[in-house]
């Protein structure tokens, strides 16, 4: 089976000094749950944003579902983006609008300028939005303004907005970095369900190594714009994790199972 996403020697240079990605390659198969870990400034956010071309890569190639992302024109790119949902650390909602309005924003990629600008959505789209809101347990908040929600609820709105796109893949940039452990668990469980039950591939940037090890089918370690680890969570060793984060043993809060000790 062909991979859903293939990244070949991806480079991104912001300016003279800042090389955020320095030749990263990997591929992701349909239905995989992949976590990207690595220290602050390693290039994780840049990597995700190159995949849906919120940022244009400097060099290298990205293939999504057989399409070369870099070669798409404006209209093709919009169409391609509908197939890739994105959720963010700071939720990136339009706070002054209600939950249902924010969820419907996920349909904008399918709308023409007139209908999309005026927010004219079809009855079918609204029905679908309410179904997704219910799946995420937000039915009581559907008409609330988003600035009245808790962080965990906001992130669920973010997930709902991505799901209504009917995406094949989710890019999640530190989805739980601003949440408490309870809300974090709820969000991670939703993401995991999205992969196992809906078959949507997830690529998640995470700062919490334990969470990454627990939920992922595969871990990718990034350091200084380079891929330094790529493999299943079972086989990663403590030393490899210390190496990714460039820290001494004991400085990280880690709970690895004994079999992973090296």
């Amino acid at each position, binding site marked *: 089976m062909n991979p859903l996403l293939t990244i070949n020697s991806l480079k991104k240079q912001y300016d003279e000094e800042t090389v955020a990605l320095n030749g990263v390659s990997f591929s992701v198969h349909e239905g995989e749950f992949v976590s990207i870990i690595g220290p602050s400034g390693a290039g994780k956010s840049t990597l995700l944003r190159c995949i849906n071309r919120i940022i244009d890569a400097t060099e290298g190639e990205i293939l999504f579902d057989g399409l070369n992302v870099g070669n798409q024109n404006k209209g093709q790119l919009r169409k391609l983006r509908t197939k890739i949902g994105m959720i963010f650390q700071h939720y990136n909602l*339009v706070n002054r609008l209600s939950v249902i309005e924010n969820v419907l*924003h996920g349909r904008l990629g399918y709308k023409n300028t007139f209908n*999309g*600008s005026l927010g004219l959505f079809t009855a079918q789209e609204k029905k679908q939005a309410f179904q997704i809101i219910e799946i995420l347990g937000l039915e009581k908040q559907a008409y609330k303004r988003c600035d009245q929600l808790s962080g965990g609820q906001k992130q669920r709105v973010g997930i709902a907005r991505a799901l209504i796109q009917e995406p094949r893949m989710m890019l999640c940039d530190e989805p739980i970095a601003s949440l408490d452990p309870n809300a974090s668990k709820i969000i991670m469980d939703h993401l995991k369900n999205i992969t196992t039950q809906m078959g949507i591939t997830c690529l998640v940037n995470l700062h919490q190594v334990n969470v990454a090890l627990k939920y992922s089918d595969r871990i990718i370690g990034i350091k200084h714009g380079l891929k330094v680890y790529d493999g299943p969570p079972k086989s990663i060793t403590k030393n490899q994790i210390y190496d990714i984060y460039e820290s001494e043993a004991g400085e990280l809060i880690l709970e690895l199972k004994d079999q992973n000790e090296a």
Partner: protein
Amino acid sequence: MKLDYFSKKRWTGVIFLAVFIVLSIWVASYTRFDLSRGLGSFVKAFNWTISSFYPDSASLVRLPAILIKLRETIFMAIASTTIASVFALFFALSGSKVTQVNSFLSIVSRGIASFSRNIPVVAWAMILLFSFGQSSLTGFLALFVATFGFLTRAFIESIDEVGHEPVEALKASGGNYFHIVFQAVLPMSLSQIISWILYMIETNIRSATLLGILTGTGIGFLFDLYYKTFNYHAASLVVVVIVIAVFFIEFLSNYIRRLIL
């Protein structure tokens, strides 16, 4: 080190105060502004106001004429503000970092805005007097240009405050530029934008009154006319009407603000 830091801060304060005092004394002596005389003439002016600057029953005959001119002035202020705000919104959208189409256009629109903003309304009126003479068009254009500059600047700040985050999210789900403007940027900034427009309408009603003296139109002209023909009672009626109108407009716009915020 720490002590040094604090004493340095204190000395800057002392020097600043000294310079300020010297400067005020110098300016006062230059313009021969004498505090006791200033206060004396204030008392005299007050007495005069009490004795002859009030509307009497004869001046009330002129009330309908005054109200017509007041309406003219208020309508001009509102028209110039609303039309300027439409132009300002387009310039602000291309000027703000969040919604700019490209950085060249952004610099151009910021430049035009700060040019028209940094020249005061009165200066614009004087410049425009040469081309359009004493007409309401002059007043309208002067208010329009200055308001356009101010509102562009204010709108750019309101839009900048929205930030990249919701914009990025809508872009990622496949939304186009207009989707982003109408579904994210405007919902987030509209109440601020309306608030600025209301503020500018208030300000422009005051400016339009004064401009009227210069351009010979509206209620400002009427005041000038009565004042110069020694009809102080009618002139004071104009003042009363203006004050009531300004209070009423401010009350109204505060009410609208409370509704939208």
